[in-house]
């Protein structure tokens, strides 16, 4: 066990995977000499050389497409996209190629690529350094979508991603890169996909969150505990595959659901959670399902604090849901 930050967890996983398997390569903009603009890849090029840690030209379609080619060969490329906001030039490569290679070839050409990218708000990054658009990828069959909220999960989920067989979009909540700290198991620590983490148990309401919203939701739950509301908090960890069973089970117990994410509400990932519950747990529901999310606007700069879900906003939603029925 070592105490570290979330981004150090990422760095440890990369380091360990590269050390363990020469087929693991990293590529991306500024990831070599510079160690990544957030320093996630710090030290890797020095240790593993330029042939394994590639600084790429400025073209995300090139980065992902090149990684797909490497993966077709059988390598295990880990591509960094500098910000999730800059992934869209690669969208065609991701949804048309990466996600569909295994299927369209009848299983002959699996393409296992890990796409790592910082995402989310709270760092005063404005429209293009703050977005959360996980729903775009979660709605594309063939991809997996994974989001850690602790240093241990950052390392454990990333190692799982690198040695998984499917393409994985690994979203790193940059806002808590350095503020989320904690003990991380040394060695080959793997956290399986599709198993939500019960952050706290409770009987009155189920709160679902992921990424940087987990610590905020946790705080909100803690505050409410003092008012007699016992909220259960689940960190989903992977959106695809989703731990449907845990989500449904929790609401069957509590009868209420509050969903928290940074992305805009309309057609966000929260919609799928609500839809699953409206199909599978309808008769357990005592109160309307509430979503606490970013608003249906682009991400603002000066007014970011008013835009993002806050402890108070989450708390109010939980309180009202419990009061509602």
């Amino acid at each position, binding site marked *: 066990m070592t105490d570290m930050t979330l981004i150090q967890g990422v760095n440890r996983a990369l380091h360990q995977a590269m050390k363990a398997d020469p087929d693991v390569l990293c590529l991306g903009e500024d990831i070599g000499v510079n160690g990544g603009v957030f320093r996630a890849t710090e030290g890797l090029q020095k240790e593993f050389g330029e042939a394994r840690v590639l600084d790429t030209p400025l073209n995300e379609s090139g980065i992902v497409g090149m990684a797909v080619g490497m993966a077709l060969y059988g*390598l295990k490329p880990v591509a960094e996209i500098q910000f999730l906001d800059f992934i869209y030039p690669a969208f065609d490569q991701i949804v048309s*190629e990466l996600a569909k290679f295994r299927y369209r070839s009848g299983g002959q050409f699996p393409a296992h690529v890990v796409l790592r990218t910082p995402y989310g708000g709270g760092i005063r990054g404005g429209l293009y350094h703050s977005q959360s658009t996980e729903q775009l990828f979660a709605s594309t069959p063939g991809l997996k979508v994974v989001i850690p909220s602790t240093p241990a999960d950052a390392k454990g989920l990333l190692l799982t991603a690198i040695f998984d067989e499917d393409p994985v979009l690994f979203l790193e909540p940059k806002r808590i890169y350095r503020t989320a700290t904690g003990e991380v198991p040394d060695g080959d620590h793997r956290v399986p996909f599709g198993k939500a983490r019960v952050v706290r148990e409770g009987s009155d309401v189920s709160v679902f969150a992921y990424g940087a919203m987990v610590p905020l939701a946790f705080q909100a739950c803690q505050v409410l505990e003092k008012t007699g509301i016992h909220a259960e908090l689940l960190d989903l960890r992977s959106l695809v595959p989703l731990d449907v069973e845990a989500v449904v089970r929790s609401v069957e117990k509590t009868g209420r659901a509050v969903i928290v994410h940074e992305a805009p509400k309309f057609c966000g990932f929260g919609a799928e959670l609500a839809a699953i519950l409206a199909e599978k747990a309808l008769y357990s529901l005592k109160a309307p399902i509430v979503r606490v999310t970013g608003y249906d606007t682009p991400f603002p700069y000066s007014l970011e604090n008013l835009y993002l879900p806050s402890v108070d906003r989450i708390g109010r939603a939980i309180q009202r849901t419990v009061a509602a029925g």
Partner: protein
Amino acid sequence: MGQMEGPSLPDTELLKVLRTMSLGRAVDERCMNLQRQGRLGFYVPMEGQEGAQIGCGWALEKGDWICPAYREMGVALTRGIPLSTILDQLFGNSADLSKGRQMPNHYGWRDHRFVSASSPIGTQIIHAVGLAYASRYKGEKVISVPFFGDGATSSTDFHSGMNFAGVYKAPVVFFCQNNQWAISLPREKQTKSTTLAMKANAYGFPGVQVDGNDFHAVYSAVKDARTRAIRGEGPTLIEAVTYRMGPHSTSDDPRRYRSSQELATWKARDPIERLKEELVTRGALTEADFDKMQEEVRAEVAQAVQQAEKVGPPEPRTLFEDVWARPIPQLQEEIQEFEELLKEGVIRP
């Protein structure tokens, strides 16, 4: 344009080349008919491009990676892929290695390093760079060859693929078949560069324009480029100037946008006729031999079609395979529902 002095290969081998080109033409003819008769869903002919495709394919080695677009049946024939395997794909039957998942002409065969094609234009160009990089990284002495058209030079991944290949000096031979048309858009309206070959300069490596209807010219340009790539001298772009004699696909009507006169001009440059004439002139082939060859390949095609048509469609359950390596919970649930629907007869294979 590169013009060869003499033959690049012995006549015995050139006869095989001619046979392969003829076989390709026969497949095209037959499949266009099958589509018209409603026996095949769709078809993309390569008629007119046999010199370019088979010239290039002939110059490659077994381990080289092919990253095709949808028109590369001729290349497939040079890779030793059985005719029946090609037809299984066209019919999307249960013998198709891609499990009937894709429209006709979107071939893919792992064992032949013939990468599964998709429809979006240009995406394979950058894959070829990744494959080339990976092969070199693993110590293999092979190259990658992305195949694409004149239209594809405008695509995003032409730019990313060419630039990345230049930067990493990847062993790639970019093979562009300039067949003068991208559906209804003529080459001159696709881009204002004088040649497509010269686009390579923008990425720091050489581009070569060759007569794509001259098997020898194509063969030797690809051989040279391959040698350079293997030697570590970096990529090459080859522009093979040719012509799409047929429609873009069976959904297209070229009379809407091009003249019969243009067609006639190019018909006179037919790559098969050209190689045949050469061999006849040299006494390596008689007209009768050639006619017999045509009959043989047509019979071969007829037999393969008959066989492939008999094979049934893929099993319903295969619908859910290969999305992820293993079905994840959301899919498992759908499979279960699907089985119920099948049992109840709500959906019928």
